[in-house]
C-alpha cells in the first residue's frame, strides 16, 4: 500500500501530506513540538491488533510520550475504564474548531498547540477535520497516527496493515523515555 488516500475519492488536490517513512520521523517531530496534543476517536475501541485494542496502544503511547490526550465522542469513558485519564474530552468537531482559533490557549490554558496528532476517527471525518486544519490553522502541524494515508494531514503514514500499525505504535512508544 502506498500514499494514496485510503478512501479512494478522499483526494486532497494540491497540498498533500508528506509520508512518514518510519516511526522515528514522527517521534522526532513530536519531540520537537512545544505543545503537542493527541486526538483519539471512536475507532479506538473498534480496531484490534494482535489481540489488543487500539486504545491500549494509545494509552501506552500517551503515557510514554506525555502528549496530552483529547478523547472524542464517548471515548473518555473507555479511557477511564482502563485507568487512564485524558487531558480532556470533547466532540471531534469541537476540538477541530478550537484548533483553528489562534486565541485558544489549549486544554491547560497555557498556549495554543503547535502539533495535533490524530488517531482513530472515522476515516472520512478525520480527513475533513485535517482539511479544516490545513486550511484554517496555517501555523499548526498535523500528524495522523492511523495506518491509513491521510492526504490532508501535514504528515501521514502510508496505508499499512494492522501488523505494521501495531509495530509503528510500539516503536513510537519505545522511543520516549516513559516507553522503555
Amino acid at each position, binding site marked *: *500500500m502506498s500514499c494514496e488516500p*485510503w*478512501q*479512494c*475519492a478522499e*483526494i*486532497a*488536490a*494540491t*497540498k498533500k501530506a508528506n509520508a512518514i517513512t518510519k516511526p522515528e520521523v514522527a517521534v522526532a517531530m513530536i519531540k520537537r513540538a512545544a505543545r503537542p496534543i493527541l486526538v483519539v*476517536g*471512536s475507532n479506538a475501541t473498534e480496531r484490534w491488533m494482535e489481540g489488543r485494542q487500539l486504545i491500549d496502544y494509545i494509552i501506552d503511547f500517551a503515557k510514554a510520550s506525555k502528549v496530552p490526550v483529547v478523547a*472524542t*465522542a*464517548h471515548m*473518555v*469513558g*473507555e479511557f*477511564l*475504564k482502563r485507568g487512564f485519564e485524558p487531558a*480532556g*474530552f470533547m*466532540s*471531534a*468537531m*469541537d476540538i*477541530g*474548531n*478550537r484548533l*483553528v*482559533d489562534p486565541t*485558544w490557549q489549549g486544554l491547560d490554558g497555557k498556549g495554543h498547540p503547535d502539533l495535533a496528532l490524530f488517531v482513530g*476517527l*472515522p*476515516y*472520512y*471525518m478525520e480527513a*475533513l*477535520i485535517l*482539511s*479544516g486544519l*490545513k*486550511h*484554517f490553522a*496555517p501555523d499548526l502541524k498535523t500528524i495522523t497516527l492511523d495506518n491509513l494515508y491521510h492526504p490532508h494531514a501535514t504528515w501521514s503514514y502510508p496505508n499499512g496493515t494492522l501488523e505494521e500499525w501495531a509495530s509503528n505504535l510500539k516503536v513510537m512508544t519505545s522511543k520516549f523515555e516513559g516507553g522503555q
Partner: protein
Amino acid sequence: MTTKNVHVKIDEMKTNTGLIKNLELSIGKVVDESWAEPMGPTPMPSLTTLRDWDMKLLNRYKPFYMPDCDLCCLCTYGKCDLTAGKRGACGLDIGAQSSRIVLLACSIGAATHTGHARHVVDHLIEKYGRRHPIDVGGLNVKVEAPVTRLVTGIRPETLGDLEDVLEYCEAQITHCLSAAHTGQEGNNLDFESKAFHAGMIDQVGMEVADIAQISTLNFPKADPEAPLIQMGIGTVDTSKPVIMCIGHNVVPSVGIIDYMKDSGLADKMEVVGLCCTAFDNTRYYDRAKIVGPISWQLRFVRGGFADVVVLDEQCVRTDMFNEAERVKAPVIAASEKNCMGFKDRTNDPADEIVADLVSGKVPGVLILDPDKVGEVAVKVAMQIAPIRKKMRVLPNINEIVELAKTCRQCNLCQRSCPQDLKIPAALKAASEGNIAPLTELYEECIGCGRCEEACPVKLQIHSFIVKAGERFMVEETNLCRAGRGAVQDVEIRNVGSPIVLGEIPGILAVVGCANYPHGGKDVYDICREFALRRYIVVTSGCSAMSAGSYKNEEGKTLYEEFPGSFEAGGVLNVGSCVANSHIAGAAIKVANIFAKRPLRGNYEEIADYIHNRVGAVGLAWGAYSQKAASIAAGFWRLGVPVLVGPHGSKYRRMLLGREDKPEDWEVYDARTGDKVNVGPAPEHLFQTVETPQEAMAAIAKLCIRPNDTWKGRSIKLSHYIDLHKRHYGTMPPDIHLFVRTMADVPMTMKDEITAILEAKGWKETVIPDPTLLPRMIRKKKE
C-alpha cells in the same frame, strides 16, 4: 387572500351572466380582514431582511469549515487552488468558497422541495380547483400554516392562496442561487446568511407541499392515531403483482392507487413504496406498504420483488433503469425532473404503452400524466406478473462461495465503501465457506453499490451481502405509523407550558435520510431512549422508517409502544420529508398559541423565542442530501440546533458554539435590559456526532434553554448527567455552566454537584426573560 396589487382591465368579456365591457378595476392591496392579526415587521423577507438576526446567531455559532477539496472548480476562470490562504481568480478565498458550497446545497434543497410543492399544487388545483379549502386538521388546527404565516404574512385559505406563497419562494430561491454566481458575494458570513434564507424558504415550500396534499388527498389530518402501516418486505404478498413506487411525489401513486381501486384490483395486487413516496402512499391509502428507506432501493429491486417500478422525483437511484432492466421489471418514469432518457409516451394510448412494456420492447417509458401512469402501471403489473418469474439477480450461497474465490483481496471495494466495510475479509471467509461475516455487513451496508463499481473482477458485492442477509430482509414485518401531518393546536396548548418551562425535557426530531454509519438500529435506540425519558419524539422521512423497524422485548415497535400524540413520551411520525415543516410549525405554534407571540410576518421575535425557550433538537443521523442541508438551514435560522451523524461531517461546515468563551453566551433580560450570561444553551447550531452514545448526551444537553425554570432545568440536567455518566463514564465537565441557582441542581445529585460548583468557582446568577433582540426589552435600561 393575496397581498398583491390587483389591476384588472377588461375590454370585453363574455361570461355566463352576460357581456362585460370596459371593466376596469384596480385594487391597491387586498387585505383579508377576517385575519385580525396585524402584519408583523418582516413579511416576505428579502435576502437581507433577516441578516441582522442571522449575524447574531453566526457570531455565536461560528462556522467551522472543512473543505472537501483544495480547489474551486465552479467557473472557467478556474480551477483555482485555494490552499494556504490563496484567493482564486475571482478573488474568493477558501472560507467564502466553503460557505458558498453550503449556499449552493441549501438552494438546491430548497428548490427541490419548492419545485415539488409547485408541481403538487399545480396538479391539485387542476383537479380540485383553486378555491379548494386548506384543511390540515379541521377544527383542531386553526393555525394551518405556521411557517407560511410567519414568513410571508399570508394565511392561506385555499389552494389558490398557496400559489402566492410559492411565487415568493421561487423568487427568493432565484435570488439565493444567484448569489452563488462567481463574482457576487465575497463574505463567508453573508453566504451563510443567504443559506439560512434558503433554508427558511425551504420550510415554507415543504409546508405548502404538505398542506396541499393533506387538504385534498384525505391524508390523516393531524391525527395522533393515524393508522399503523405494514412495513418491511415480509409484509408484502409477493405472489401478487407488485408495483414499487420510489421517490417523493405522491401524485403518480395516487393515479396508480385510484386506478387499482376503480378496477376492483385492490385485493389482487400490492402497491409498495420506498423512500418518502412510501409514506405519502400510505397516507393516501392505508393498505399501501412501506418497504424501506432510500438505501434499500438496490436490495429490493435485485431481490426481484417488483413487477413494475415507478419512479417519481428525489432520492431515486439514477441507475434504477439499469437495475430494473436486470430483473426485467419495466420502469415508468413519472416526473419531469427525472426522465431517465426514456421516450415520452404521455400522449400515446395506454394499451399501446402497456403492450410495449409487457413485451419487453422497451425497458421503460416516460409518462407525465398521473392517471395514465396509474392505468399503465396497474395493467403492466397484472399482465406481466404471471409471465414474469419474480426474477432475482441475487446469487445463491454456493455461487457466492465460488465467486468469492476470485476475489483478489485488492481492498478497492473497502476503500470505495462509504462505511469502510471489511468486505475483503468477509469475502475471504466466504471463499472458505463461512458467510457469517458477509451477513454481518447486511445491517451496516447502505446499499450504495460503490464497492461493485470499484471491484476489478466485477464481483456483485452488494448482492452477496443482501443474499447473506436475505433472511433478515424477508422476515422484516414491522409497523410504522402513517404520517399524521401537523400537530394540533390543542396539543400545543397542553404541552406549551411544560416545554417552555423545561418540564418536558425536550422535543427530539429524528429526521432525514438513511446514510447511517452502522445501520438503522441507532435511530431506534435513540428514539426509544428519549421516549422513555418522556421527551417528545418526532420522526419523519427515512428515519421514521428506521424508528419503526425494530421491536422491544414484547415484540412491539416504537409506534405501538408509545402514543402518537405530541405529548411527553409520544413518538410521532409526521410523514414524508415535506412534513418536516410541521416540526418547525410545532415550535412556532408553541410561541404563537401557547405564548401568544404575534406570528404574522414576525420572524425574528418568534425565532428568538424558540431559540431561547423551546428545547427542540433535530437529529439527522443519516443526512446525505442537499434537501437535508436546506432542512437543517431552516432550523438554524429558527435557532434550533441540528445534529448530524458522522457522514454529515461531509456537509463541510459546522456551526459551533464555544462553551469556553463566556462572552458568547450573553442574552438580554427582557424585563430589565440587563445582559445576563445564560451559559451555552444551546451550545451548537450544527454539529456532527460521531457515535450514538455521543448523540444521546448531546441531545440531552442541547435541549437546555435559557428560559428553563429551575424545575425544568433540574429535570433536563438530570437527564444530561445520567446519559453522560452512562455513556462517558463521568460527570459532564460543563455542569457548572448550566446551574444558575442551587434550585437548578437535581436533588439526588446535590452533594456531588455542589462540590463541583465550588471547585469551579461557580457563582449564582439570575434566570432572565431571555432575548437576543434589544427591541424586545420591555423597560429600556437608562
